[in-house]
């Protein structure tokens, strides 16, 4: 057997393997994040943290739909400041922590970034792509100029690498990715959920209290893969793939499309916390069977094929 390495380097952040939980999936609780790490993830991502505590939307906040899950949690979080101790506690156990966050204004983004940077987060993930909250909070990332500005403001105050997480609900994700890169993004996370909704025929009303929600899980996969492809073609910085990844084959496909690492969320529902180890082991087997020595060896290979 060759010297096979599963570790990856994303903009200077070195991880034991290329899997993480997706932001907002379990990340509101430090003990659950620890369990994610023990389940085999290379790093953990927090719930998106804002400047103030938020309860999020009232239930129903989730419903299963064809091929996936719709959620409209509405960014519940105890506030970035409150969560600093959780970040510190996780890091004290040797767990790399990526702090996801959002704001209602550029100043917010800068302030929260500064706070989380000082808290020692190993990387920051800027959420400009939540479909479930008011425009000013969620979808700043639908617009190139805003994306660039937010990224630049965050970069100004951040010590660790800054990932910008993009939405698939845009006409041209490559343009937005370029804007984030221009703003100084160290990596792009693609993607957040697709905006969808569910209606109940018996009650003749939308099921989610927030009316619309974000589609995650398998139904999102082919769109997310295309987004990673488009973004990887457009930017030089690493891409982190996210959206509907359920098994190692999915993860490999995202890597072949150009992802250096992957975030896995909804799959936890059916595969449990072991999904991270399952995926990592599967990637290892794939690299070995195909004669690659590292994860890096397959990143973007499908781009080269055409």
């Amino acid at each position, binding site marked *: 057997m060759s010297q096979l390495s599963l570790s990856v380097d994303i903009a200077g952040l070195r991880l034991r393997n290329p899997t993480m939980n997706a932001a907002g999936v*379990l990340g*509101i*609780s430090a003990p659950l994040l620890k369990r994610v790490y023990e389940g085999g993830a290379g790093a953990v991502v927090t719930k998106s943290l804002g400047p103030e*505590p938020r309860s999020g939307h009232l239930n*129903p*906040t989730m419903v299963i739909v064809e091929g996936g899950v719709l959620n409209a949690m509405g960014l*519940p979080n105890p506030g970035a400041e409150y*969560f600093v101790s959780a970040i510190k506690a996780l890091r004290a156990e040797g767990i790399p922590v990526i702090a996801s966050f959002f704001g209602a204004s550029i100043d917010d983004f800068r302030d929260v970034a500064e706070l989380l940077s000082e808290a020692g987060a190993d990387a920051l993930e800027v959420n400009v792509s939540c479909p479930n909250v008011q425009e000013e909070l969620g979808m700043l990332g639908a617009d190139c100029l805003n994306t660039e500005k937010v990224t630049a403001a965050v970069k100004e105050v951040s010590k660790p690498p800054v990932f910008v997480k993009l939405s698939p609900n845009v006409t041209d994700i490559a343009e937005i990715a370029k804007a984030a890169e221009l703003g100084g993004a160290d990596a792009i996370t693609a993607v957040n959920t697709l905006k969808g909704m569910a209606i109940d025929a018996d009650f003749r009303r939308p099921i989610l209290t927030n009316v619309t929600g974000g589609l995650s899980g398998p139904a999102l996969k082919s769109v997310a893969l295309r987004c990673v492809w488009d973004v990887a073609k457009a930017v030089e910085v690493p891409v982190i793939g996210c959206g509907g990844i359920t098994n190692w084959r999915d993860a490999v496909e995202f890597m072949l499309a150009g992802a250096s690492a992957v975030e896995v969320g909804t799959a936890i*529902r059916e595969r449990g916390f072991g999904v991270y180890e399952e995926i990592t082991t599967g990637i290892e087997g794939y690299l070995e069977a195909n004669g690659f020595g590292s994860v890096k060896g397959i990143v973007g290979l499908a781009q080269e094929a055409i």
Partner: protein
Amino acid sequence: MMRTAVITRVLRMAPDMVTLYFEDEECSKASPGQYAMIWIPGGEEIPMSLSTINPGGESSLTVRDVGEATKTLCDMKEGDKVGIRGPFGIGYTITGDSPLLVAGGTGVASLAPLAEAFVERGVKPTFILGAKTESDLAFRDRLENLLGDSVVLATDDGSCGFEGFSSQCAEKLMDERSFDAVYTCGPELMMVAVFDEAESRGIPVQASLERYIKCAHGLCGSCAIGPYRVCMDGPVFDSEKLREVREDFGSRKMDPTGKIVGVDH
């Protein structure tokens, strides 16, 4: 997916508690201790234990009016409809030849189907049915028909049966007889007392916990207790897990923002 359940009958259990019956194939196949998410269209969606599980037949919820959603449920009439998801979670594991079931308040909801499951397997459990006062004792007939004098009543005010909390009653019974398994559902502080008591005697416990349930699919983390999710790793926790979360059990929970707050009942 969201389903629709039509209320087929309503039974008033106590001044502030009703049982709503409905037919739903999925729920009729649930195991004792599992819960469903009940959606009041136009209102909220909340977790409710299944208080009747009847393979091929009726299921039920037993609801105490403590706020807006539960009040709406308590006012429902035959023919009214709710949305339903589930059943969710891990229920009770049936084990033991001389089990003690300790219910406080609406805790009887999940323990009544458990008692029936025991009897079906030829085991007659001892059932402590506790409440504030006599008129709050839910499912008394159902349990007495099932278990006869193995039902031990307890009321805080002593209006009926043992005077005191279910947990105190449990302590007394554990002194008097030997049990090989303890099951409990009710106010968390009561369950903590039962757990500690059983621990000191080396009896395994299964307790049904409550935390704030949002997604019910193990994804959002809102229901965390230690490294577990009440919605999917629970709601029933065994002694091993209870020991692991002992710092939080009876002491700390997250509010809907994720802030940690105290547990006060």
